[in-house]
């Protein structure tokens, strides 16, 4: 009961408000009224300055107030609930069998490249991502980012609502406000409207922007993302005069030269698939491809190279020119080069494979290098064979993204921008420091809208933040690396009040502004001639093609068609292929297949000139110091967008196994020169006496010096921990993007240093700088601390030629002392059942880590956090061991990679020591783990020579967050504290295949039971199946003469075996390493295969 004064004031104010018809939008009532009395009223409203009560509270009043309060309390329950259908299944959807997963084709886009995926849906929840075998960019495989994207969808830290200046609002609020503003801007054709997106190849979104530019010709659309193809575009313009998109055909290339291109870290795993097809060795095909890498930092591609040359980034253009000259590119000169022998031998080899070789430049290389690569490919006759050119897939490609950003920044600074719509991306965080969209700059824009999955650094500085749909929640489309379009369909209703780019852009239209993404995408494709594209025979396997995608977007995805995965067992329903007749049929088919056939652009004929060689070199940025510094994306969290993803944070970086952090890579010699990480003695650095290899640290105390890094005059704010890396060129420091987030979520905020602090628009990928020790140290959580095999016969790599010529090489002698326990008794059991086995082809494996994340996703493996990794308690059931070889710490071979998972020993050392029978052998030869029975003595883990068992030292699983409950694979136990766990060969997948087979009364066929790691592998390095089936792939690989058991002398009889790696060296190369003499036995003294 306010005082009389108040009542009077209030009446006066109300009149005042009613008489106003000022600003249409206001942030608060104060702002709207803008009257001194009102301000006073507001301030007095609060108890601290409350006016005195002038009437005592009578009993009658009290009862009235109480009654009213109760009534009002009831009112709040009167919010209209959304309508719900409560009709139970009378006739259930025939495709929806409770407890049986369905697969839907969809796709994920990163950097404008879409990878086709099959998402596994379990009772309407996506729980696993697989590659789409029909999609050219996937071919059934995915990389780590696509695998881990599932966790992003269920991330409890995702933004969950529309907010205005961090106050919760609704989508209709936003629509009203935005449309009002847009209408205001129609006066000058929307000249103040700016869109900032990442690289867009979605045909629908491109079409939307096209139509919008007709309606609002003044509006501008800018594309920028921190990792882009600017250099490739600029290089193409140098070489051809126009921007073209380059497609490589590694499956036709026998000789590959990478100029700093990290082919094996590509999101587009189609390239890795293609490459590995040429790498497969068999008795029939003994010739495999050869990979030359010239690079200025370490990468997994360089590790797998047959010949690797490290140069400083600044030397790269000269090296490229020298190679071009050696390949006979006109105009190129070989000047002042120290690596002439290497280059000439390599060039000679490439020349011998004209039309069957390929030169690939890295995206961080300067345009000149790209242009030279085009010229080299032309000189080698590769164009049309291994290299295909098309028009760019993204519009406005003639303008570099950095220039587009520059224009936007100029317009903002000039005050021209009235509405800025930032769609996805996090430009506040990731724009170059000289074009930073910082608070000061953004405040010049009167209305800022941000659409994103996270309320991140950018969302914080925008007026409106619209929570973005995850790709598993939204309809969209996109193009693969070769331009093949595909429709992305949602697997689940958006978990939150989220929207996507299509819906946001649609709001700018005068008409039909409130369309749903489904209608927008379908509407676009209705205008396209799907009939013609679907005339081509679809490569899709015969599958049930039912009511695909006809459902409204809000309907349960269960209404969409099921799609068998790579494993036919999961959806063995067969139906007659539907011959498409009309749009609906076509639409269903393309949504179902996940690929729109023949939608790739036609190859374009262009001819490379070398006129650019005559041009003066681009002005180099000012010299910033005596060191060269390379800026790279993080191998796990990419440019920072995945920084709140615990799976990726905890994923060991392929080369140094660091988790939860970014470090600066430094060569051993440079570290010694600069006095960085110095206190470690040579022996500790070397880590053993069997030749040099590498540990960065003494034992497990993973300490690194923190240094300040200055790059082109600017300094990274946080200290950068240094990590001594063999193979890193001297005087070159590599720093990684993606960390130093200030608003990523509870996982990613505050980790690592931020390399965007120093990244400049004129030095995006490398530049000069200096480092200075701060005197401080930090502890780095790394899952492997010793990278030397110590002369043990663990990871075999043979020289190809020697191996081809020596039939005896690689044979493993199995002789063991007589045992009291007869081995044969188990064999009788195994003979009656499936005999599961696996081989891992170390020649194919590129160490990309996809299997590790696939395993984590499939098997509900917990994330433990940095502190626990530091205590070496990571839970990954599968790890990829890396070992360096060679005697020179500065120029080692490798590291070579060896995926290690449970070896499923027939004579398992873990089983005999378990006191409670918690780990026992199955009749099919699996080493089963009974979580319920485990009391946690950890004896099994101690006795496991492969150390593949993982123990729940604490309650690592998050049992409370509701989102994670949805995400988990219901077929795999969620393990509790105090229990040992390990790889089971995905026993749930085997069981699913077995059930299908038993229904038909037959044995499981080869390829029906597919482990998670196997199905995701981009190189087909993991082969799993029944060893009894003589025709199975696994049985064949077991008889490959590269096959060997790890730690064979322990007589564990592992079911997992390895195929030795091969190194296809060129004898004429100056860095040719002659194979060591072998006598065919294990052990250091008896001559072990060379540790790569």
């Amino acid at each position, binding site marked *: 009961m306010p005082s009389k004064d108040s009542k009077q004031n209030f009446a006066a104010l109300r009149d005042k408000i009613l008489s106003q018809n000022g600003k249409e939008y206001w942030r608060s009532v104060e702002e709207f009224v803008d009257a001194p009395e009102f301000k006073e009223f507001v301030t007095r409203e609060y108890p601290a300055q409350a006016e005195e009560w002038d009437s005592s509270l009578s009993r009658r009043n009290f009862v009235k107030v109480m009654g009213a309060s109760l009534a009002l309390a009831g009112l709040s329950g009167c919010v209209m609930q959304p309508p719900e259908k409560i009709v139970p299944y009378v006739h259930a959807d025939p495709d929806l069998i409770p407890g049986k997963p369905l697969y839907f084709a969809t796709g994920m886009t990163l950097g404008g490249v879409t990878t086709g995926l099959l998402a596994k849906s379990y009772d309407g929840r996506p729980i696993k991502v697989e590659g789409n075998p029909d999609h050219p960019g996937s071919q059934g495989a995915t990389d780590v980012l696509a695998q881990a994207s599932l966790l992003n969808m269920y991330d409890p830290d995702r933004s969950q609502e529309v907010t205005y200046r961090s106050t919760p609002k609704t989508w209709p609020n936003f629509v009203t406000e935005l449309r009002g503003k847009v209408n205001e801007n129609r006066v000058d054709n929307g000249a103040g409207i700016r869109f900032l997106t990442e690289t867009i190849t979605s045909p629908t979104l491109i079409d939307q922007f096209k139509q919008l530019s007709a309606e609002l010709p003044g509006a501008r659309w800018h594309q920028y993302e921190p990792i882009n193809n600017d250099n490739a575009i600029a290089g193409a313009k140098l070489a051809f005069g126009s921007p073209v998109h380059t497609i490589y055909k590694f499956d036709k290339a026998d000789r590959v030269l990478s100029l700093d291109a990290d082919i094996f870290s590509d999101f587009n795993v189609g390239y890795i698939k293609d490459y590995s097809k040429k790498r497969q060795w068999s008795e029939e095909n003994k010739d495999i491809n050869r990979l030359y890498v010239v690079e200025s930092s370490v990468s997994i591609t360089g590790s797998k190279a047959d010949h690797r040359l490290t140069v400083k980034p600044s030397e790269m253009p000269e090296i490229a020119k020298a190679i071009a000259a050696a390949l006979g590119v006109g105009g190129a000169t070989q000047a002042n080069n120290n690596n002439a022998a290497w280059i000439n031998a390599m060039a000679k080899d490439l020349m011998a494979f004209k039309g069957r070789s390929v030169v690939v430049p890295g995206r961080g290389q300067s345009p000149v290098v790209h242009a030279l690569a085009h010229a080299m490919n032309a000189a080698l006759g590769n164009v049309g064979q291994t290299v295909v050119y098309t028009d760019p897939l993204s519009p406005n490609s003639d303008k570099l993204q950095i220039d587009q950003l520059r224009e936007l920044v100029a317009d903002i600074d000039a005050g021209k921008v009235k509405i800025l719509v930032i769609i996805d991306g996090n430009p506040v965080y990731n724009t170059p420091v000289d074009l930073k969209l910082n608070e000061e700059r953004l405040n010049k824009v009167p209305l800022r809208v941000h659409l994103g999955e996270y309320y991140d650094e950018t969302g914080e500085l925008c007026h409106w933040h619209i929570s973005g749909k995850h790709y598993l929640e939204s309809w969209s489309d996109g193009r693969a690396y070769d331009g093949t379009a595909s429709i992305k369909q949602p697997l689940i209703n958006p978990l939150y009040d989220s929207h996507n780019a299509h819906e946001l852009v649609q709001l700018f239209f005068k008409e039909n502004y409130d369309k749903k993404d489904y209608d927008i995408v379908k509407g676009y494709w209705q205008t396209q001639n799907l009939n013609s594209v679907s005339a081509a025979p679809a490569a899709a396997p015969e599958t049930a093609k039912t009511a695909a995608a006809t459902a409204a977007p809000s309907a349960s995805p269960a209404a969409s068609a099921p799609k068998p995965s790579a494993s036919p067992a999961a959806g063995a329903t067969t139906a007659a292929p539907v011959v498409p007749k009309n749009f609906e049929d076509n639409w269903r088919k393309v949504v179902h297949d996940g690929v729109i056939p023949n939608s790739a652009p036609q190859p374009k004929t262009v001819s490379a000139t070398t006129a650019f060689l005559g041009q003066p070199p681009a002005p180099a940025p000012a010299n910033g110091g005596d060191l060269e510094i390379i800026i790279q994306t993080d191998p796990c969290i990419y440019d920072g967008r995945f920084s709140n993803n615990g799976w990726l944070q905890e994923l060991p970086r392929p080369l140094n196994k660091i988790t939860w952090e970014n470090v600066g890579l430094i060569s051993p010699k440079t570290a010694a020169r600069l006095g960085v990480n110095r206190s470690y003695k040579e*022996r500790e650095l070397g880590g*053993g*006496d069997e030749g040099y290899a590498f540990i960065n640290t*003494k*034992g*497990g*105390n993973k300490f690194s010096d923190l240094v300040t890094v200055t790059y082109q005059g600017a300094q990274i704010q946080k200290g950068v921990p240094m990590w001594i890396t063999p193979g890193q060129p001297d005087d070159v420091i590599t720093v990684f993007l993606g960390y130093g987030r200030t608003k990523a979520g509870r996982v990613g905020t505050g980790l690592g240093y931020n390399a965007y602090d120093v990244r400049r628009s004129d030095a995006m990928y490398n530049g000069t700088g200096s480092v200075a020790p701060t005197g401080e140290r930090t502890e780095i959580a790394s899952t*492997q*601390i*010793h*990278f*030397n*095999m*110590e*002369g*043990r016969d*663990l990871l075999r790599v043979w020289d190809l030629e020697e191996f081809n010529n020596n039939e005896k090489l690689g044979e493993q002698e199995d002789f063991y002392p007589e045992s009291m326990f007869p081995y044969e008794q188990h064999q009788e059991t195994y003979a009656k059942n499936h005999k599961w086995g696996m081989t891992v082809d170390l020649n194919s494996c590129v160490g990309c880590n996809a299997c590790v994340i696939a395993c984590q996703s499939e098997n509900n493996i917990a994330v433990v956090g940095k502190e*626990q990794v530091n*205590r*070496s*308690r990571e839970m990954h059931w599968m*790890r990829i*061991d*890396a*070992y360096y070889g060679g005697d020179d710490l500065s120029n080692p071979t490798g590291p070579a990679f*060896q995926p*290690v998972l449970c070896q499923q020993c027939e004579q398992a*050392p873990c089983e*005999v*020591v*378990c*006191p*409670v*029978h918690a780990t026992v052998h199955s009749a099919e030869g699996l080493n089963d783990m009974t979580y319920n*029975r*485990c*009391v*946690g*003595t*950890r*004896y099994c*883990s*101690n*006795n496991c*020579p*492969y*150390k593949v068992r*993982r*123990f*729940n*030292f*604490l*309650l690592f699983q998050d049992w409370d967050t509701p989102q994670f409950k949805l995400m988990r694979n219901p077929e795999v136990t969620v393990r509790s*504290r*105090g*229990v*040992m766990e390990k790889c089971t060969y995905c026993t749930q997948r085997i069981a699913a295949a077995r059930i299908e087979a038993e229904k038909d009364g037959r044995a499981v066929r080869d390829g029906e039971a597919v482990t998670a790691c196997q199905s995701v592998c981009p190189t087909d390095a993991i082969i799993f199946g029944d060893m009894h089936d003589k025709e199975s792939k696994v049985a064949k690989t077991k008889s490959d003469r590269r096959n060997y058991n790890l*730690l064979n002398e*322990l007589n564990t009889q592992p079911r997992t075996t390895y195929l030795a790696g091969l190194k296809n060296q060129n004898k004429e190369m100056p860095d040719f390493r002659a194979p060591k003499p072998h006598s065919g036995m294990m052990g*250091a003294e008896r001559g072990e295969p060379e540790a790569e």
Partner: protein
Amino acid sequence: MQDLKEVQRRIYPPMVEGDHTLATVTDKISDVPLKKKTPFHWFIGFGIAFMIAQMLMMTIIWLLAKGIGIWGTNQPVGWAFPIINFVWWIGIGHAGTLISAILLLLNQKWRTSINRFAEAMTLFAVACAGLYPVFHTGRPWLAYWLFPYPNTMSIWPQFRSPLVWDVFAVSTYATVSLLFWYVGLIPDLATLRDRAKNKYFKFVYAIFSWGWRGSARHWHRFELAYLILAGISTPLVLSVHSIVSLDFSVSQIPGWHATFFPPYFVGGAIYAGFAMVLILCIPLRHLYNMKDFITHTHLVYMGKVMMATGFIVGYSYLFEAFFGWYSASQYEWFMIKSRIWTGPYWYMYWLLLLCNVSAIQLLWFKRFRNSEVWLFIVSIFVSIGMWLERFVIIVGSIHHDFLPSSWGMYSPTVFDISMFVGTLGFFFTLIYLFVRFLPMISIFEVRTLLPEANVHGHQEDFEENVVEIEYTYDRTDPPNA
């Protein structure tokens, strides 16, 4: 005859010094729990020990709440402090039974005055040890699954696992040790019952003395039971630590997988046990003025046993290294090299050699052997050394095993240390309670050492021997020359 007395003292030193009669022995020992005012030092010592024991309790509560991840145990070092401490305590627990049983069977009279508290020490050490296997499991509330109890699922423990053998070995050892100690206590409990003035004490002693009246029939049965228990205990002394050592031998980790572990571990256990007995009895005989019963001779004898077992241990170290080389297995040899000089824990090995091999060399010399202070210091060294030995074997072997990629390091956390120190507190709490409420020295057995007890029988033994000695004496120099 004066010379003969001297010879007698030298060859058969008296096990009871001073002018004690049967009555004074009883008075002196039984007065500690019954009559004497509880000394101030007891309150101090007990208070400290009890507080430290509370730390153990808090650690266990936190452990149960959070999980064993509060320790530093990790992958690959799946066993660390808890198992080190378990083996260490079990080792300490060996001396009591050895003294009681084996020395009894060997008719070593000098065991009499120290056996009681050595046995008590054994029990308490086994109690401390027993905590670890239970609480080191991931799910301690299910640790009973290691016992072969009948359950509805008809699941038995897996008898191939050494951990199950451990369960049997340790629980049998604990049971037999308890019985042996308790049976030996019965006559003394009866004495206390008879002498107790406080009716509550009298009642409790009465209950536990089972109506002992000291009749000839009682004594007859007692002697028989005691002898049988000694017979049962004797193999247990050898079996317990042998089986504990099999936890390691059965596995295939280089550094664990060694056939000579059982004797090596038993030798080490007796070594550690005697060291702990010395650590306890040197202060006790001063604080409670028991020098007449725990004589200088006792200390010297124990020092000699410690030295002998120390050499067994030293020999084992030598041959561990030799086998590492002789096996021609690169893993074994790497492990030895890593243990001794290339590995990150090399200093632990050298500390171990300092404590277990170097320190006991002092006992060659009479000067040190006869000095209580030096014996005490050496015993402390040995106790630390035996702990280090287990660290070197357990952590030192497993942190670097077959695959270098999986190598790791171990460092204890504050909870590892509080658990260990806490068990020390628990141990000393029990020791303090024991000396306060029970006769720390066997009254009736010490009485048998007095000349009065030897009016017939034993004296004759002596005289026979003396004749022998005299015979030798005639032909050689006088003993005191």
